[in-house]
């Protein structure tokens, strides 16, 4: 009989924190500077330099811990993780092993309508490494320490997930939560959120874990889903062939859809952790915890409940809007200004999301102001422009955050409501299209649509559709 296997998955998620400076020095964390321009003696490991901890890193770590139901370690410390690699200027990483800042948390995920908790073993603070670039020309490696010392939190889950859907739901949950806290922008593609997948398989019904492997280099949800499938199959195949799964770190190659062992005989994987002597312990008293708790913004779950009550918009719409704090903030602000939650929601779910996708953007990168969207909604409601023009104007708002009132004025996009002008144009259209008029008279009410269309065309889209309908009706009835 065919054996059935269950996949057991745990995640190590690295999140780059949204601080202005690095974790142990006053260098900027800004992305994309010229090589080594955001460096100093501390983050390049110069002899004699010493680390000093950025307070904001601790604040963010506590905030994430609280939002993921963790116990905050009152007395926590940093440790050194020793290994040689050129992206790591001191050849040790300052991290936390023995007393991580958060422990024993969980988040709730929902897959296909059923809910479950994923445990969080711990969250620790650590420093990022520099960037290695392969130089094809000289076949050597070049090292840029701009990212060296950028603060990270590493969120280590329990092996509580069983398939890719759960993994992705967990990651999305972490992402929205952390984004809501403002602790990180969590962009998978840009590497500000990175997930390593620990995976093992076991026969269904077994309560023992199989040997796990750790997969790295997963930079999209799709890659994660493929890697889980690929690694599951690879491990099952080994077991069926009577071979053993080796506990090791593997690198996922998304093009080849296969993972490769990263082991080298030069790496012993013995990190010789010991307490970092250059940093003093962190003592988090209840006052500090209270302060962070008080500063915690409204998270997604609370927002969803409130939206349903306060704005009366469908849950599906609310889900889309609250997927990121950025969107939710725009929604709330715009609604406050224009007083129309439904229309605001429609603009965000419809046009905004369409443009985000079209431009391959992240919602976090949306840059238009709620003021301008609110103005647009208002002038549409007043009938100053019609929906077609409104979409055009919105594209401008989306791209350049223009003031729609001024724009409409300058470009002469205002709808024409003036009865005299409209009557003249419509009369001409009616005269030029006797066939349609006849159809209409014969009961083909659809024909009116054609006449409206022709009128709009003649008005270059700037006619108020309501006025056109009214006048057209009058003229046709008079024929």
């Amino acid at each position, binding site marked *: 009989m065919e054996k059935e296997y269950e996949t057991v998955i745990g995640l190590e998620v690295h999140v780059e924190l949204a601080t202005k400076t690095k974790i142990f020095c006053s260098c900027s964390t800004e992305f994309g500077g010229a090589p*080594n321009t955001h460096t100093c003696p501390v983050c390049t490991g110069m002899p004699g330099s010493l680390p000093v901890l950025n307070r904001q890193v601790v604040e963010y770590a506590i905030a994430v811990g609280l939002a993921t139901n963790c116990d905050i370690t009152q007395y926590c410390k940093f440790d050194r993780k020793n290994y040689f690699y*050129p992206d790591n200027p001191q050849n040790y990483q300052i991290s936390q092993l023995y007393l991580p800042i958060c422990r024993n948390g969980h988040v709730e995920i929902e897959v296909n309508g059923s809910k479950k908790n994923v445990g969080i073993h711990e969250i620790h603070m650590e420093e990022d490494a520099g960037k290695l670039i392969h*130089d094809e020309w000289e076949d050597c490696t070049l090292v840029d320490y701009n990212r060296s010392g950028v603060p990270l939190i590493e969120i280590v889950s329990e092996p509580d997930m069983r398939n890719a859907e759960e993994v992705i739901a967990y990651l999305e949950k972490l992402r929205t939560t952390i984004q809501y806290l403002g602790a990180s922008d969590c962009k998978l593609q840009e590497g500000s959120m990175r997930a390593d997948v620990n995976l093992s398989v076991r026969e269904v019904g077994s309560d023992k874990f199989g040997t796990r492997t750790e997969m790295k280099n997963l930079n999209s949800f799709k890659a994660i889903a493929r890697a889980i499938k690929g690694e599951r199959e690879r491990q099952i195949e080994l077991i069926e062939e009577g071979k053993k799964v080796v506990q090791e770190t593997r690198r996922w190659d998304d093009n080849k859809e296969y993972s490769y062992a990263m082991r080298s005989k030069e790496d012993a994987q013995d990190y010789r952790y010991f307490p970092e002597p250059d940093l003093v312990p962190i003592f988090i008293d209840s006052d500090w915890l209270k302060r962070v708790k008080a500063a915690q913004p409204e998270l997604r779950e609370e927002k969803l409940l409130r939206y349903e009550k306060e704005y009366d918009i469908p849950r599906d719409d609310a889900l889309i809007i609250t997927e990121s704090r950025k969107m939710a903030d725009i929604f709330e602000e715009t609604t406050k200004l224009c007083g129309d939650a439904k229309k605001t929601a429609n603009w965000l779910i419809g046009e905004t999301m369409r443009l985000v996708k079209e431009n391959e953007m992240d919602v976090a990168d949306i840059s238009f102001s709620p003021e301008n969207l609110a103005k647009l909604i208002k002038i549409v409601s007043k009938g100053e422009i019609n929906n077609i023009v409104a979409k055009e104007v919105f594209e401008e708002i989306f791209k350049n955050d223009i003031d729609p009132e001024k724009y409409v004025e300058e470009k002469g996009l205002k709808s024409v409501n003036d009865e005299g002008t409209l009557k003249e144009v419509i009369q001409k259209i009616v005269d030029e299209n006797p066939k349609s008029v006849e159809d209409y008279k014969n009961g083909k009410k659809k024909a009116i649509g054609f006449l409206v269309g022709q009128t709009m065309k003649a008005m270059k889209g700037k006619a108020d559709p309501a006025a056109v309908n009214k006048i057209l009706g009058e003229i046709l009835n008079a024929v």
Partner: protein
Amino acid sequence: MANVISDETIEYVGILAKLELSGEEKEKAKKDMESMLDYVDKLNELDTEGVEPMSHVFKVNNVFREDVVTNEDTHELILKNAPQQKENQFKVPKTFD
């Protein structure tokens, strides 16, 4: 109890420490480490049951920096001592296969 350091152990420690010892050095290192460890084993005479390991002597906690950028671009200084560099980056033997 005298400590015995095997060839494998010296080899392993060499990998951890990134040190390459010649045959003669290796023998000496083994002997040195054995005698050092024998000496350090004296600590086993002490009952340290229940004693909290002391990493820091003083109870100083919570020394922080505020999150303000004060460092300027000093890449020329940073690269000044580099044994090999290229285009403002440190140059090392390739790390990719």
